């Protein structure tokens, strides 16, 4: 059992969850992920590590409510116990001296690049963090990211804050303007990662994407997370999560992610009303 130390909705539908997991906090490295089961009957779901503290034993995750299992997690309160937390899993991102590193992120990825940015900067890279959101009220971790990057660029799709557009538009413009990017790392939805890969490919900029296929055990046994990279079968859990964006078979990833879409909908159909009943309320007597 793993205690929730802190929980906060940092942006609408985006929840920061801090869990007491000292063994994981000692071993974690940037780019790795955990697998969580909210209760003993939960599905196993991978979440990218955002941050951790080896001294206090706290690990931080960013969880989007996107279905039955994540809903269970975000409805838990500080002090509640998460049934299983497994990790750190996955191959850590190679943190060497690359030169200029652009970190593009959206949704949960904004949290996920925090530790990557910090480590990259420590390795004497120039770190440009480019974070995208639909609108200004969906940005989070601005201060935290500013602290660990050389440059923080926020974009919004509706133009309400920072640059209007997506992170990929910023990368594209910079490359077209002749700026040298030695490595691009993208963490976000497959749509964003795919589009970014398309734009960096003609410029031959090495681009790593953190793939997020359906995953079950996270240790290379089940094969649920298989992806095709350069025509070779890889397991995102033990060979990834980072792969070369220009070599990923995106169509296959889309197909495989949608394999259980009907069942996923079915699992949220029957959810009970969520808010605890108030004492004295008519519904309380049922």
């Amino acid at each position, binding site marked *: 059992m793993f205690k929730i130390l802190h929980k906060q909705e940092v942006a609408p539908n985006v929840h920061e969850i801090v869990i007491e997991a000292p063994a994981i906090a000692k071993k974690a490295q940037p780019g790795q992920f955990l697998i969580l089961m909210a209760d003993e009957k939960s599905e196993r779901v991978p979440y990218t590590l955002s941050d951790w503290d080896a001294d206090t034993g706290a690990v931080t995750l960013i969880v*989007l409510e996107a279905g039955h299992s994540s809903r269970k997690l975000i409805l838990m309160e500080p002090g509640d116990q998460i049934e299983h937390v497994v990790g750190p899993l996955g191959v850590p991102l190679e943190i060497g001296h690359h030169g200029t590193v652009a970190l593009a992120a959206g949704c949960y990825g904004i949290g996920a690049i925090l530790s990557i940015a910090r480590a990259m900067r420590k390795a004497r890279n120039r770190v440009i963090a480019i974070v995208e959101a639909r609108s200004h009220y969906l940005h989070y971790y601005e201060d935290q990211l500013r602290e660990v990057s050389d440059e923080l660029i926020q974009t919004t799709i509706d*133009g309400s804050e920072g640059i209007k557009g997506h992170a990929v538009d910023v990368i594209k413009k910079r490359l077209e303007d002749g700026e040298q990017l030695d490595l691009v790392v993208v963490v976000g939805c497959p*749509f964003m990662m795919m589009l970014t890969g398309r734009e960096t490919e003609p410029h031959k900029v090495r681009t790593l994407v953190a793939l997020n296929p359906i995953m079950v055990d996270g240790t290379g046994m089940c094969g649920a997370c298989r992806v095709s990279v350069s025509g070779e079968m890889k397991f995102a859990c033990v060979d990834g999560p980072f792969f070369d964006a220009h070599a990923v078979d995106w169509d296959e990833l889309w197909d495989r992610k949608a394999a259980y879409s*009907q069942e996923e909908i079915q699992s949220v159909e029957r959810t009970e009303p969520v*808010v605890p009943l108030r004492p004295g*309320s008519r519904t309380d007597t*049922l």
Partner: protein
Amino acid sequence: MTRTLTIDGKAVTARDGETVLECALRNEMSIPHLCTHPNLPPFGACRMCLVEIDGMRGYPASCSTPVAEGMRVQTNTDAVRRLRRKTLELILLEHPSACLVCDKRELCERYRPKAEKAGCTTGCHTCNNKEVCEIRVLSEQLNLAALPVAPSYREMPIERSDPFIDRDLNLCILCGRCIRICEAHHDEATIAFVGRGSKTRIGQAFGRSLVDAGCRFCGSCIDVCPTGSLSDRYAKWRGKPDAVVETTCVFCEAACALSVSSTRGRISGAKALRGGVPICVLGRFALPEFVNGVTRLTVPSVRVGEVLREMPWEEALERTSRKLKQFTGNTFALVCDTTSTLEDRHLFERFVQEVMGSAHYIEIEPDRRGVSRAGLPDGVKAALMTGAFVESAELDRLDFLIVQDCYPTAISEQADVVLPAAVFAEVDGTVVDGDGHFRPLRQAGKPPGQARAEWRIVTELAGAMGAKGFDLESATDITRELGTAEAKLLPERGAAPAAAAKPGNRRTHFRGHRIDERVRGVRYLPVDNGAVPVTAAGG
């Protein structure tokens, strides 16, 4: 009295009492509109339907302007187009609108046409209403490309503590349709505009829950909501249905006409066919959950030794017929209730008389709560039941029991044969309402697994027993054999049925099954001061 007017230079004839908007729409001329709705009186709040009318000052709202003789209306001038777009831009400042002005919208639609589930919606891509959204249609009609200033987000917690209805007021555009339909449909509205100015929102007085505020859960508010703000918790992520069938509700004798939607043959939602008067919580919310239960009977099974063993239909029917031949005459009884279609019951009766040579065809009329109970006549040794209608203790004197049902029950557990039946919106046929009118049932979804229509099960059982005259191909064949008057839907009724006016008036049972065991939300709506009557059999 008719009036003639011109709309965009075209002469049209208006009907008495029509508004400019109604007249234009009836003549297939489009004027963008939002807050108005066919089931509601004009409101004139959103200003999307502004037009220019010669001799009238400013830009009148066509939804609330009655037609007049000789009126000359312009619906598409530069000025009104600009006004409408500006109005929409303002509306969208308080509605998650980024996806509507996104420059990657086309690509996004290509790669992810379906909305992704989210707890809290922050754009079309994670909105349950994406595929049927009226705001999206308007933004396309009006070429919305950008917002004038940064939008705001209300940061209202999403409301999902009531049964059946999810509410995310961050998506609400305050068109008031939900409030107005609640007022039109019920003596006292449950919801109202709460708060003032920029804090105005839809809500209940004193912050009560919908249940506490006496909501009837007719779902009309969801049906008229143009955004994803109000949603049917069960159906919300199914997207646009790929089929919609008009059929009749059989939860009670009111027999309301329903529009039942399905996706890939699976029933996903139901609502009132026209929506002029409300339907009850069962008709609106219970049907999909009831028919899609995971414990539905899906495969025939026959008792072999101590256990019920699943087997193919052919083998199950063959074994059943062999055994049943030992119980001809009045040692056999068939027990059904009137929630089975007329066609099913006709076949049941013929089966009892012609195949079994018995007089014991027992048809139960459910009581006001839907409870159907019967006793077995003396001397009966074998029975076929289409639901849990008798006391468990009565089964002890049976030597052979066939249960044909949709869910397992205490009775089916004791049966020698269990046959999975299709029910309700999974079948075609005719039902009789409380006033004696014939109402049509039309198949709106596939039965689960190998479940079959009840008339078909009996037909095949008769065939397996060597009976002649049971070679019927469809429910329509039987309707013809019955020679009943044509069944007609009841799309509009004078007043709301009793259960729609008060959920406590609803039925609690359907064919021997407690509805609240299959549809959990109704547990929050007590009947008889919280005491739900329970049949000993249904449990």
